[in-house]
């Protein structure tokens, strides 16, 4: 136990129960930093909870219980980290927590069951979970909210069993158990009447998959507010579809204008898009560093944070750009100092496919246990394109491009080029020798490429490790099962020994 990375066996902390045996000792300086940030998280949560609306929301909605695990979430996602890595993780993820708290505060204030602030409610436009909020940059007087993000998406990340109750609700309703658990959980929340009934109107999108859009249709009935279905093209790489994407967005804007009486504010939109472009530039900087032998913004710190920046903030919140810059500064300094993210990097990998929401800390385990550095992931490899900030027509086309390329959707839709071929290009670009392929059981779009992935990886001499999971249903493939698949490959194919043997086999089935 000490200041150095890998100085203590991390598997020993797992007690087989919810909580770990003790907190990690990272040397005085890093432990102090981590502890103060940990206290900051508690402070954020306590400040949130002492507000009467939020407290009432906590007791009204079952999914709120999952947020008790936020401090544990941070511990999981900073496991084994030291120095710059620790700071990058906190810098990014803390803002996500603050942002979600703010979203919840507004939700409970507007919720007729709780705060019943009608004025606020009349300003809210409810968006689909996987849908970018970018469009709302043109409506500065309106409030973008997603009821599904706090109830389902972040819930399942905080607590691995966080949404299984809702998935069961959907199964009881008659939806087969083979569909993707995410839309199933969302529908379950609707069926259990656990969605706050907020918003003047709603916008849904043909997001990630066929199941997702089908769940939306039924959910829309439970919102009881006018709902617009934004159907952006599926074959989004084709030139011939772009105009339609833009037309759909124009229809969507007209719908919001009609429902709320607000006008689309191009000036504000362009301002936000300038910020959005700057955020994209920051990300490109990180990718440049990741191509070298000293990658810095990688794994979870990249994936979860970028989800917030790209999808949820979408250039509307200036604080994200501030954090981006801070992260870039930290990363550049570490790169110049030739800092490693783990003591012995053995392999560089890309994680492809959809990550398990119940095991977002899996890439950290890959690093700590086997020395596999998760350089980047499929969800982070979204648009690198800049949005035009002068020409309205071009901006609308660019915006359509963003909506077509939303996280997950950009790979699960679009065909072979986006799902398979792009992977090999990224492998080359980031100089990786390994792909951790998340085989998400409910993701039919990616599973349909199974054989092609194997054959192409073999041709290219890339180590291709399949890791089965079921996104939000840990009962179908536990965290331990996921680790076992990597362990087997590393031992039997590569004949390697783990960096930290205590992490090879441990019990965390009951952990948050």
């Amino acid at each position, binding site marked *: 136990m000490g200041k150095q990375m890998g100085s203590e066996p991390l598997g020993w902390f797992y007690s087989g129960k919810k909580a770990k045996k003790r907190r990690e000792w990272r040397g005085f300086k890093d432990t102090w930093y981590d502890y103060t940030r940990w206290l900051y998280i508690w402070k954020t949560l306590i400040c949130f909870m002492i507000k009467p609306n939020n407290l009432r929301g906590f007791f009204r909605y079952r999914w709120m219980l999952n947020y008790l695990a936020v401090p544990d979430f941070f511990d999981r996602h900073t496991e084994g980290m030291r120095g710059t890595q620790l700071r990058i993780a906190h810098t990014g993820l803390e803002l996500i927590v603050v942002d979600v708290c703010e979203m919840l505060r507004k939700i409970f204030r507007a919720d007729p069951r709780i705060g019943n602030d009608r004025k606020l409610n009349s300003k809210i436009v409810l968006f689909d979970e996987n849908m970018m909020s970018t469009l709302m940059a043109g409506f500065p007087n309106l409030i973008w909210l997603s009821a599904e993000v706090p109830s389902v998406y972040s819930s399942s990340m905080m607590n691995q069993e966080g949404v299984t109750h809702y998935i069961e609700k959907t199964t009881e309703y008659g939806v087969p158990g083979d569909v993707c658990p995410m839309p199933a959980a969302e529908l379950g929340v609707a069926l259990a009447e656990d969605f706050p009934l907020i918003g003047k109107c709603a916008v*849904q999108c043909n997001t990630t998959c066929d199941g997702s859009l089908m769940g939306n249709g039924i959910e829309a009935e439970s919102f009881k507010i006018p709902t617009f*279905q934004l159907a952006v093209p599926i074959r989004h790489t084709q030139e011939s*579809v772009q105009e339609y994407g833009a037309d759909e967005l124009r229809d969507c804007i007209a719908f919001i204008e009609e429902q709320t009486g607000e006008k689309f504010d191009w000036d504000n939109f362009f301002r936000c898009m300038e910020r959005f472009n700057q955020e994209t530039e920051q990300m490109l900087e990180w990718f440049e560093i990741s191509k070298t032998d000293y990658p810095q913004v990688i794994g979870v710190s990249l994936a979860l944070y970028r989800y917030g920046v790209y999808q949820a903030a979408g250039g509307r919140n200036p604080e994200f750009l501030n954090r981006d810059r801070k992260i870039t500064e930290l990363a550049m300094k570490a790169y110049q100092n030739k800092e490693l993210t783990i003591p012995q990097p053995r392999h560089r990998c890309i994680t492809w496919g959809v990550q398990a929401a119940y095991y977002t800390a899996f890439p950290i385990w890959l690093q700590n246990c086997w020395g596999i550095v998760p350089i980047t992931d499929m969800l982070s490899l979204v648009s690198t394109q800049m949005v035009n900030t002068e020409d309205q027509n071009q901006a609308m086309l660019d915006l359509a491009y963003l909506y077509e390329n939303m996280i997950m959707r950009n790979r699960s839709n679009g065909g072979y080029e986006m799902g398979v071929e792009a992977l090999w290009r990224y492998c080359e670009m980031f100089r990786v020798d390994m792909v951790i392929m998340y085989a998400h059981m409910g993701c*039919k779009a990616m599973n349909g490429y*199974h054989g092609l992935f194997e054959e192409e990886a073999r041709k290219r001499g890339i180590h291709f490790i399949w890791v089965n999971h079921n996104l939000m249903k840990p009962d179908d493939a536990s965290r331990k099962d996921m680790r076992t698949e990597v362990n087997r490959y590393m031992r039997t194919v590569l004949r390697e020994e783990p960096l930290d043997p205590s992490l090879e086999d441990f019990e965390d089935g009951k952990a948050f």
Partner: protein
Amino acid sequence: MKDLKHLYYLEKLLQEANNELVREASAEGRIAIGGVCAQIPEPLLNLPGCFQVRLRAPRTGSVEMGTYYMSSLLCECCRAILERALEGGYQFLDCIVAPDACAQMNRCVENIEHLKLCEKDKFFVTYADVPMKSTGTALKHYVKQMQVHVLEPLREHYDIDVSDAAIRKAVALQNEVSRLIMEIGEYRKEANPRITGYEFAVLCLSTYCCPQDKLLEILRETAEELKSREPDRKPAFRVRVVLAGSEIDDPELIRLMEEAGALVVADRYCLGSFPNRGEILLTDEEDALTQVCRTYIQWGQCPRFMNTEKLVERQTYIERLVKEYQADGIILQQLKFCDYWGYERAHMTHVMREDYGIPVLSVDRPYVAGNSGQLRTRVQAFVESIEIKKLAAGDRKHG
């Protein structure tokens, strides 16, 4: 009832994707287009000089190779089609025109393409983005996609005439086929229908899997034959049902249901007669392509149409069929692992039972289900439950 004259011949045709009529048309130099979804308007695939063959995998046994390429969690129909392609069963195709309508079928076609399973020199695959809504914006997009990803490639690769006149000619042919099919299907409204659901399914399915012009004479003769066909005095069925849900490309499934006592009087599934055997009405005021696309958008009953109006329309559509064909209930079926129908079936089952008060049997099934004992038992139980309800209603009525 006396056997229909052409039934055996059509049954035999349906045993092969590359059947006798397909081979005949190919030998005439016509282009065989593999179709995988109703989202590509059929007249565009049946233009003069080409014809559609809806991809099926009749007599499927194992789908192991298909499962290797697409995993065991994907729709068996898609896996079976890929398996058939791996076996070389679609070598006769000149191209595949696929919409990106359902991810699973799309993956199936992409596998066929990337594994190079069709080896004709000029073979190509084209993918069209088809809309998920029935709005004016969607129609504009639909027309463009059909132009760019269906008509243009056909013209470019095979010099097919894709003019307005050619489209109108293809529509006329399809309308003729559809009129005959609907005329034949009308008999299912009779109290004791002179045609079974199975027989009708064989006739209807053939129109998707063979060059339509080559079926015209058979359909005409069958329509004529039916005019004087006498049904059995004692009906062979116990209840009448509307069969709805995902694609059915095997009439054996319907035979199974009818053997269990449920006569299929209306067919609202992909490859059935509703809605795709309706008539396409063209005017001279507008180009044929736009009118065809508009018709298909309006017809569209696939759950992938995601706007709320369409969702509700799908329910009222089936309710209308129940009334029109005096059905006692609905069998809602889906191919296992179909995301669209997985949700739609669950939701529609609730709506039809609770809001419309119609008995529903809700089942998922494997691709090859014609011999499924489990399914037979479920249909039998459904038939009995309807009979019990009828008896109970009769008792109440009589006091």
